[in-house]
């Protein structure tokens, strides 16, 4: 297949994805979905920390507050990817019955998911940027709690953003691989994965604070290194490694693609690609 044709297929599915993610809703709801909802999810844990410290009469550490804010803001692309990836098979196969049609096109499912992921990247970009700006302004000027974002290292920032996107793409292929074989996990699978990542992904605390035996997870999970590099990019004194930041999610993406292709083949063999009314 030539590249031009492949790109046309990806852009067609990106357009479908954009319609599903945004254009099916009214502008106010779209703003709610892409700005207010992620902002609320961004503020939840930093404020928990602030209120917790106020309750016990302790002092809020600006560095740790910044650690949590950066973690929750840049976790948004993973949330967006996991939520859409968790639903995409159920929507296309069960609800709209189009999965079989997409499957028999020349491009089939892999570029289709890439296009849908591109739409998620667009919406996540809006959500992440708006959450970062509003959260920063809210903590600095409404709550009078300074965030220690002293500088920006653009090399680290761009490297980490690429790693976030690669890690999100890995999730985007992994969850449908599971959902092709079941119709019962489309609600819960994404939240299992996100719940696990909240615990182990260095989002609101270092995974090593669970137990030091869990420290190795920081090098295995495709989220930790990227978030820590983002923190370093904004001037927090956190160690980061460019090589690990890129290779860990890249390894996960390669693994996800292999699993996805095997999963599609297996689903075809078991006649699951057009199975509807599976209750």
């Amino acid at each position: 297949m030539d590249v031009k044709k492949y790109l046309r297929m990806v852009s067609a599915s990106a357009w479908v994805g954009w319609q599903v993610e945004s254009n099916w809703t009214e502008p106010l709801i779209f703003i709610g979905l892409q700005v207010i909802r992620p902002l609320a999810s961004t503020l939840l844990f930093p404020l928990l920390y602030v209120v917790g410290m106020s309750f016990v009469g302790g002092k809020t550490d600006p560095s740790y507050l910044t650690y949590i804010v950066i973690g929750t803001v840049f976790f948004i692309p993973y949330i967006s990817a996991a939520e859409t990836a968790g639903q995409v098979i159920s929507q296309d196969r069960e609800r709209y019955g189009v999965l079989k049609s997409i499957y028999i096109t020349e491009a089939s499912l892999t570029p289709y998911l890439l296009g849908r992921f591109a739409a998620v990247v667009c919406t996540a970009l809006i959500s992440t940027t708006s959450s970062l700006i509003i959260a920063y302004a809210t903590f600095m000027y409404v709550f009078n709690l300074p965030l220690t974002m002293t500088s920006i290292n653009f090399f680290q920032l761009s490297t980490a953003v690429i790693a976030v996107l690669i890690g999100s793409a890995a999730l985007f292929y992994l969850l449908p691989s599971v959902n092709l074989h079941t119709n019962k996990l489309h609600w819960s699978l994404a939240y299992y994965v996100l719940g696990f990542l909240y615990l182990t992904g260095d989002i609101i605390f270092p995974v090593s604070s669970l137990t030091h035996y869990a420290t190795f997870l920081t090098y295995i999970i495709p989220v930790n290194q990227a978030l820590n590099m983002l923190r370093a990019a904004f001037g927090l004194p956190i160690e980061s490694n460019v090589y690990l930041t890129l290779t860990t999610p890249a390894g996960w993406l390669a693994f996800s693609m292999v699993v996805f292709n095997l999963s599609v083949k297996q689903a075809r063999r078991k006649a699951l690609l057009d199975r509807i009314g599976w209750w």
Partner: protein
Amino acid sequence: MKTNLRAVYARTYVRVKSQFREPEWLISDALIPVMVVFAAATLYRVSGSQQIAGFAVVGGVMMAFWDNVLWLMASQLYWEKESGNLDLFIIAPVSKMSILLGMSLGSIINTSIRAALIFLIATFVLKVEINLADPLALLLLFVLTLTALYGLGMLMSSLYLLYGRSVLNLNDVLTEPVYLLSGLYFPTIGKHSPFPAIIQFLASLIPLTFGIDGLRRTIILGESLGSLVSHFAVLAVLTAVLIPMAWKTLQYMENLGRRQGRLSLRWM
């Protein structure tokens, strides 16, 4: 009256029965909030406020009810429309409120089991200190919170009656902001609230806010009935307002739907 009570029982039965058709999902559904509760409790511990980690547990328990209200109360009539059951509900010779009431009772039973599992798992694993001094206050507060909350669910269900697929997006919009405002993991009303008075006032219009705060005070801080009078008053007022509003709204939306022929429209 008898027919309506039978409709309530029938709708409750369907909901409870469907839950126990696959009981393993009870545990599975309980584990999702447990992971986020563990994360919130760990954040309390890591930051040095471990003694209030139980706040996150109470929030996790009530999160199950809020999710249930959004996805299995508010959007239920939309699901019924999609699956073709709404037409049957409309032509059935019963009050539509009895169907909503049955849905609520079934949901409360199912979600209470799930909530109890979340509470037990989280308190056991996190070794949360329980300081329950007044079980009667806890029971009354819990019942009143659920009555007000499911009153809101019935109201939302009526409002969603004519919506199309954007209800799913609307539910998504309402999930995290309500987690934040209602104080799922930390108090959002009172002296420790990070929010200004106007936001605290708006937050208190959500039944969960005073409900969670009261439950936290009884279960974790060991407060009794006497110190929770304002909580009871606010929840009672919300109940008294929300349920009649749900009734009126349902009648209005049903009539509007009949006039516009939108009650059985799908995929819009």
